[in-house]
């Protein structure tokens, strides 16, 4: 008999835990915990592949639990389940917990089963690829050499989309030494830049003229899977954040105004993440999810895709 995958459910409501467990127990080895501390204990003792946590719990809220899960067991796929849309905690869970999916309560049993299944598959794929990489040790060494500061390394490319030129210029002055910053005010500008060179980090507004920023970023993601996407916008809305996480797997969702220091810090983290994606593409959840289950990742809008392809054609002609 095959060994069942370990998953962990966390909710302060025992009846809810029972029902979730009932739904999943045929296919998984289900662990449950009624508090964050108990959950961390379970996580240390079992190879948990997917953790699904409620946000609102006494003592330790869900986003804090997921943040700690991330540091204890980085490969564990983290899903946040919450019934009460609290913007602040959602932002925190996205930005500090790097949540794989954000689910609204009450969540349909099918959706839950699909997410868990997808999560387990991604975990398995990531782990197997990591093992393969570990076997091919020399390659790792080469990668490490590239990363060492002694060797002159090229600055990571950062693309700002949809901001005023002055705003970006100000930032460029501060961040010139560590990043190669380019700015695109419109989608067309952004397309042109994206077809020319690989970008490490994309910082984007969500209002991009007539197009929905999330749709556009999906197209970008298709073309440049290594790019780490950061959303920096005025509007923080729980639905938007949920979409940004679920469809785009954004790295950070930030609201204006923010400080230069914070941008620099986030860009540094994002650059590291992008390097990781280049070296270990299996760590890129979005890509892995796409490989594992094409349906789980929404296909970008066709018109935007055509636009990108046209831009590429024109570039090839010239």
């Amino acid at each position: 008999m095959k060994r069942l995958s370990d998953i962990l459910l966390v909710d302060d409501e025992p009846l809810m835990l029972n029902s979730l467990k009932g739904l999943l127990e045929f296919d998984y080895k289900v662990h449950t915990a009624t508090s964050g501390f108990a959950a961390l204990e379970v996580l240390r003792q079992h190879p948990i592949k997917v953790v699904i946590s409620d946000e609102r719990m006494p003592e330790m809220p869900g986003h804090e639990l997921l943040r700690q899960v991330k540091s204890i067991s980085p490969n564990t796929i983290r899903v946040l389940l919450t019934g009460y849309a609290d913007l602040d905690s959602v932002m925190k869970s996205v930005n500090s917990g790097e949540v794989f999916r954000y689910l609204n309560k009450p969540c349909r049993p099918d959706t839950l089963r699909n997410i868990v299944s997808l999560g387990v598959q991604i975990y398995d794929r990531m782990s197997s690829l990591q093992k393969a990489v570990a076997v091919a040790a020399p390659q790792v060494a080469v990668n490490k050499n590239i990363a060492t500061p002694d060797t002159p390394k090229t600055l990571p490319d950062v693309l700002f989309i949809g901001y005023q030129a002055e705003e970006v210029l100000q930032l460029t002055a501060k961040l010139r030494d560590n990043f190669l910053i380019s700015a695109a005010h419109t989608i067309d500008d952004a397309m042109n830049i994206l077809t020319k060179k690989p970008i490490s980090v994309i910082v984007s507004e969500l209002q991009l003229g007539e197009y929905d920023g999330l749709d556009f970023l999906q197209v970008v993601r298709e073309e440049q899977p290594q790019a780490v996407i950061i959303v920096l916008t005025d509007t923080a809305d729980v639905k938007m954040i949920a979409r940004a996480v679920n469809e785009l797997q954004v790295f950070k969702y930030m609201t204006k105004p923010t400080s230069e220091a914070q941008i620099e810090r986030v860009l540094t983290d994002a650059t590291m993440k992008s390097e990781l994606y280049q070296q270990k593409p299996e760590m890129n959840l979005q890509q892995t999810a796409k490989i594992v289950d094409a349906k789980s990742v929404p296909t970008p809008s066709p018109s935007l895709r055509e636009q990108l392809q046209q831009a590429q054609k024109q570039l090839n002609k010239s």
Partner: protein
Amino acid sequence: MKKSVSQGGTHHHQNISTQTTISTSGYVELIAYAALFLTLVTSIFVVNIFLSRQSNDDAAQVYCATRQQRAWQKAQKNLSQTHIACYTQLPIDSTVREYAAAIRGFDRLNDILKVGGRLMLDEDSVQIAPVVETQALSALQRLENLWAPARKDLLTLAASATVADTALLERSLEYTVRRDDAILDASENLIVTLQRTSNERIGQLQTIQVVALVLSLMVFAAMAIRLAVSLRRRDSVIRRNTEEILQQRNQLATEKERVEHLLDDLKNTQSQLIQSEKMASLGQMVAGIAHEVNTPLGFVMNNISIVERNHGILAAALADYRSLDNMLRTGALESLESMLESIAEQMERIEEFELVARTQSTLAESTIGLERIQELITNLKNFSRLDEADVKSVNINDNIDSALMIAANIVKYKADVMKDYAPNLVAECYPAQLNQVFLNLITNAAQAIKERGVIAIKTVTDQSDAVIKISDTGSGIAPENLKKIFEPFFTTKPVGQGTGLGLSIVYKIIERHNGNIDVESVVGSGTTFTIRIPLRQPRKDKSLVSGNGSTAIYNIHG
């Protein structure tokens, strides 16, 4: 706004003082002009009187001198007649007498001219002033010089009344004859001189009069001009002031309008705020309810899915069992072994997961979930009490529990609730409003707690009052804020997070219940709100005419 008003006031004040200065100086000037004018007119009169008296004197002197001349002529004529009569033996008495009277008159008139005196003129007596003018004096002196050598003789002759002394007569006559022309000339000269002096004086008088007239006219004109100027200035000041007053009145009118607008806006804003406070608490309630309903709803949905799946497994097992039963009855045993294996497999699964017992417990749990939802709905209905606008006797403890359930999503993660209820505490109240009070205070208590704490709720009956104490172990309220917390719009929450109306509405509601609310707080250790309301509300005055409208009118500040 206040500033601008005070500026206007100062401005106005300055104007008044300027005006006062202008009018005072105007009066002073006017008085000076009037005094000057009066002085001039008076002096003209005085000079006029003086001069006309002088010319009167002059006329009297001229008259006097003329009389003197005539007296001389008369004396000379009578003397020569006397002389002729003397020699012709004619009676001489009358001529001598006339001579004597004339010559005496001449001498007296001379004296009068020299030193002044009284002269009889018909019935009147005329006062003659002595001659003082140099020219007239010298003319008089000349006449006297001519007269003086013969004076004694001529007067002696006149005094004798007879012509006894012919030598004297001869001598006198000779003298008069010889000097007649000279004396007449001198007398003429005196008269002419006096006349000229008089004329000069009249000329002078006229000149002075003309000059004075001109001067007074000038003063009058100056005064008139000055008056006109100052009147015009005053007019312009008055006009300006009037304009200013009108302008200020207009300004006031616009200001008033503006203030009224502001007041309207404020009223609107206030009602909007009250509305938004209501919406905010409604939103909070809805969010709380949604969360509270979501959890049982979620697991009931999951459970239905589980039961569905289990039902499928159990139904399949039952179908297999029926097939087996059929096989055994009909004796078609060729696939018996595989059937038994299948059934065993299914039974293994059913037993492994205790599907029969678990299905039952799942259903039982679902029932719990549905009951919880039902309870929530009941509480919600109790809480809102939309159908109960009037005073009702309700169990206060139940109402607090309803509010606690509504606030559960906030309270649950912040605090443990400790209840200490007086059994069956029934009081008359507006239940929906009182619930709002409880919800507000409980929510505040939970929000005051930073990490985790305790909310203690105690109800007691104190004589004819119900007393409800809601305490928390939260951050407490600073003493300077404590007295302001019931004021509308007072809030320590950031802008946009709370209208600052919650506690002011609580205050109003308790006031409407004829009760009172107190707060005690220690920063860092917690806050206690104590509500006291009468168990029975006073009967409302049902009459239409009187009644103080205690239920309809309430003041936020109390």
